[in-house]
């Protein structure tokens, strides 16, 4: 396959960026999208040019490092995959592919396609935990049975990889899906109920402070989420937040 790439290049946070055109030959369908970029970079290095920087690490869709807005969609056109799991067989010979960083005011560009997603960390630091000491002096794990459905729902919420695709997809750059997944994971478990009120208030406050937009229920986040995190989590967080506000 031969492909035309339009890639966002930006030297650093303080420099203006621009789209740059590249042509790449010999792309195979079995390559992952990132392996295609590897080939491009190898070529750039051999020509003495700076390779394109992008975040990646595990390359099996779980670490949440890789990002990329590919042809206007986070993680590209395939569903339930991250960019590292997107394979080139989804594209055709001669295609033009536009590659941009995830765009949000709360995710400033560091270089090229690399963005700073520490806003997510700060949201979690604001309350995404259960305040239990890690000394091990706790009750037996089976002391509190937990309904399978609740445990499963908690698990599904907890599978969020924090990649930021929800923010990137949302026309408002809202982080509600991410935040609500974290809130839900704990809200669904009895051990997480204890601090539920404070948790949701603190996490939502931090989310707002980071400059993310507002949720307008377009549902784009759910569609683009590589882990299929459900909109139900947002409704649950809204509920949790309202009840926390009423309780004061």
């Amino acid at each position, binding site marked *: 396959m031969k492909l035309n790439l339009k890639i966002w290049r930006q030297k650093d946070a303080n420099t203006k960026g621009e789209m740059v055109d590249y042509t790449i030959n010999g792309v195979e369908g079995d390559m992952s999208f990132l392996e295609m970029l590897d080939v491009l970079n190898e070529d750039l290095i051999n020509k003495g040019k700076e390779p394109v920087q992008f975040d990646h690490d595990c390359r099996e869709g779980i670490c949440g490092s890789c990002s990329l807005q590919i042809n*206007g*969609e986070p993680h590209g056109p395939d569903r339930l995959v991250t960019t590292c799991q997107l394979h080139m067989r989804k594209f055709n010979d001669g295609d033009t592919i536009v590659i941009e960083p995830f765009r949000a005011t709360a995710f400033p560009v560091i270089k090229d396609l690399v963005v700073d997603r520490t806003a997510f960390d700060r949201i979690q630091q604001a309350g995404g935990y259960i305040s239990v000491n890690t000394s091990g002096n706790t009750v037996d794990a089976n002391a509190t049975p937990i309904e399978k459905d609740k445990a499963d729902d908690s698990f599904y919420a907890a599978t969020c990889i924090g990649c930021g695709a929800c923010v990137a997809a949302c026309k*408002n750059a809202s982080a509600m899906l991410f935040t609500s997944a974290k809130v839900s994971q704990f809200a669904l478990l009895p051990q997480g109920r204890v601090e539920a009120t404070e948790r949701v208030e603190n996490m939502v406050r931090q989310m707002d402070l980071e400059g993310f937009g507002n*949720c307008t229920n377009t549902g784009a986040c759910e569609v683009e989420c590589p882990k299929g995190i459900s909109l139900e989590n947002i409704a649950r967080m809204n509920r949790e937040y309202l009840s926390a506000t009423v309780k004061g």
Partner: protein
Amino acid sequence: MSGLIKSSIARKVVMALSGLFLVFFLAQHFTINITSVIAPDTFNEWSHFMGYNGLVQFILQPILIAGVIVHFVMGIALEIKNNKARAIKYKKYSGGANASWMSRNMIITGLVVLAFLGLHFYDFWIHEMDYKYIAGNAEDPTRYYQETVEKFEPFWRTVIYVISFVLLSLHLWHGFASSFQSMGVNNKYTPAIQTFTKIYAIGIPLGFIFIAVYHHLNPITH
């Protein structure tokens, strides 16, 4: 409370509540209007009641106007904030790949409906205010039907009404069900809410269109 209204979720709830209130109002408005096609006398009777009942005029009407203002001011405020949340835009953004046109363009449909409201207020509300309080005319419980039908005589006005109702339909299509999600309702009833939303979003505006077109095609002959 000031803290409450600053939070993104609380603002969404305000949008949802005011929106639902307006949805409810719309149904009531439609119920009265449809009588203008079926039974002009009932239409006159009900319109007169609405125009001169103290509770409606001095309590419900201000609440309605407040509802409209809150909904639209908050909507604009959210739009501004949301716009800031992505200061640098994408070169290529495939919004249609993952969300409906209606959900992404509430601000457009909303502003069109708002502009229409301007015309609608000019046509009816300002006229009423002038008739009752400025010109100080006497009560006339039989004038409403004729006044309404006459409004739809010009072709241009009927067309504007029809277009506005199409956009209202698109606005409702997303907004109605969405307000439940904003208030935290997403459960086994959600599919039913979504179905009802679709029926409502098509049915009510279509009904209004029918009324407007009907009166345009059936002018009162003098």
